[in-house]
């Protein structure tokens, strides 16, 4: 099936998860991602899958832990406040090297915050809010099509690397409708000899665990995990460049912010300003190398984000002093108009941002 259908971003994630072979979904209602649960509640019983509304986000992520222990593809989704509750589970999934797909359709925070779109969980996702040293693969879709495509990719990467893949979307990406083509593709699958499925008295027992009371052993586990992370940083970085060949004012933006930035760049070009954009598709691993390379040709970089300069820190680290890095942001559920971004581009082009 290759027909284009009109879908909400949240629904595209849900349908793509089914295509990827996910037959277990656990969630707890929270705006603005509830369409994912609603979609799963309708579809899962019809295809022999599990949809379960858990008693809390904490329970949901631990049900994910349980299914993942058995080696099957499993997911949960939530929005920012719910993600705080899932964070304990994210640390345990990392410590037990379990694959999972976790979707965060971000809304404004902190606290109960609001229900309008935001990107203020960037630190939570990319620096990992839970305890201990760990990372998650963080994928940032910028269209409904990417909501679907990155969901499938996320499941594959989670299995390949035995870790959590997070889809870091926002309320707009979740709610907006666009034509999307969800191909019924064969997804890559991976052997899971570590899974706890019952020994059948044919193999030694498997144990899924994150406890290592012997510190030298725990250190070894951490170092090995970071070797794995290193290879992901070397092999799995994804980004898109827009009008970058001659760009002097380089915007770095992901998700919804990248769509606004695109319009601002076109407007800037019409005014003769050589603007362009690097759009990270993976936020972890972060596209450091390309940002560092492009910083050489840049008069300035601007981190365009719906948060208080969270991603800007990574842009600064990547640019490593080769050019100034400015911030263009709105928060709390407010979204910049292209004109606001354009104004920032013009300021940067004129020699600095106030």
């Amino acid at each position, binding site marked *: 099936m290759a027909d284009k259908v009109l879908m909400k971003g949240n629904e595209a994630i849900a349908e793509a998860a089914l295509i990827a072979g996910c037959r*277990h979904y*656990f969630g707890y209602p929270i705006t603005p991602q509830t369409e994912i649960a609603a979609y799963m509640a309708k579809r899962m019983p019809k295809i022999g899958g*599990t949809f*379960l509304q*858990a*008693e*809390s986000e*904490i*329970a*949901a992520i*631990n*049900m*994910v*832990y*349980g*299914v*993942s*222990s*058995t080696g*099957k593809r*499993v997911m949960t989704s939530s929005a920012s406040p719910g993600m705080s509750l899932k964070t*304990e*589970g994210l640390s*345990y999934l990392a410590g*037990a090297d379990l694959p999972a797909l976790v979707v965060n359709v971000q809304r404004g925070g902190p606290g109960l915050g609001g229900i309008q779109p935001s990107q203020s969980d960037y630190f939570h996702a990319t620096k990992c809010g839970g305890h201990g040293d760990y990372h998650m693969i963080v994928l940032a879709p910028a269209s409904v099509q990417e909501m679907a495509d990155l969901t499938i990719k996320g499941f594959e990467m989670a299995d390949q690397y035995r870790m959590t893949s997070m889809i870091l979307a926002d309320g707009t990406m979740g709610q907006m409708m666009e034509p999307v083509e969800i191909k019924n593709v064969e997804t890559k699958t991976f052997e899971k000899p570590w899974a*706890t*499925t*019952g*020994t*059948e*008295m*044919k193999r030694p*027992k*498997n*144990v*899924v*665990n*994150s*406890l290592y009371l012997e510190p030298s052993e725990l250190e070894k586990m951490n170092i090995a995990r970071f070797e794995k992370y290193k290879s992901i940083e070397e092999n799995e970085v994804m980004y898109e460049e827009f009008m970058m060949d001659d760009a002097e004012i380089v915007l770095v933006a992901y998700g919804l912010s990248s769509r606004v930035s695109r319009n601002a760049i076109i407007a800037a070009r019409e005014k003769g300003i050589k603007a362009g954009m690097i759009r990270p598709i993976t936020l972890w691993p972060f596209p450091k190398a390309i940002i560092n390379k492009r910083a050489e040709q840049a008069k300035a970089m601007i981190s365009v984000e719906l948060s208080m300069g969270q991603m800007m820190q990574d842009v600064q680290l990547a640019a490593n002093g080769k050019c100034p890095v400015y911030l263009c942001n709105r928060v709390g559920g407010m979204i910049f108009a292209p004109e606001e971004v354009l104004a920032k581009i013009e300021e940067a082009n004129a020699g600095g941002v106030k």
Partner: protein
Amino acid sequence: MIVFEKPKSLANVPLHYCPGCTHGIVHRLVAEAIDSLGIEGKTIGVAPVGCAVLAYNYFNCDMIEAAHGRAPAVATGVKRSLPENIVFTYQGDGDLASIGMAETVHAATRNENITVIFINNAIYGMTGGQMAPTSLPGQVTQTSPYGRDVNTVGYPIRVCEMLSQLEGPAYIERVAVNNVKNVKNAGRAIKKAFENQVNNKGFSLIEVISSCPTNWGKTPQAALAWVEEAMIPYYPLGVYKDKFKDEEGK
């Protein structure tokens, strides 16, 4: 003829439990139940956080270590994924009745077809003897040094009584392991809790009144006596819920 041997489902490793602790007895009863039903190869256990955190080393079946209190949620995931397998959790009072109370109640009300072994020794053992949700009124612990004052910290929770009010669960029983008679009865109850799952009868929870000589500050014998004199009067033994009782009577 062999009249006494180690259950096959129990791993051949030294247990880390303190002298006089009854975890060892309950581990054995669980292993005997698994052996007698011939389900070792398809059983998946979920260990808690607490003294039994290392239970994954002691059973020969596949094991999963859960976060504190989350074992019933993890077990829910495992059972939904592998409904033909046998899934049990083994949890203490802090794990099950304090931090994990929501997971416990909701797994019960959903009637998840799992087996829950609940060790109630009225104290947090692993962390060195703090007040538990099941510590008795007046009980002295590290965090109730003047005795549990019910006016400021509330009353102990009777888990079996509470859960038996739910429509969901299939089987709820409280047993003890302080003497031979009670141990034999506990073995019967634990086996029934696994059998229920094999027969798709649903959520079974066995609360086992246990002793913690180390953190109670008692000798093993005095601790067993305290189970009889103080614990059992507050936590009466017996079957609190059996959905299929009438069915079996026929």
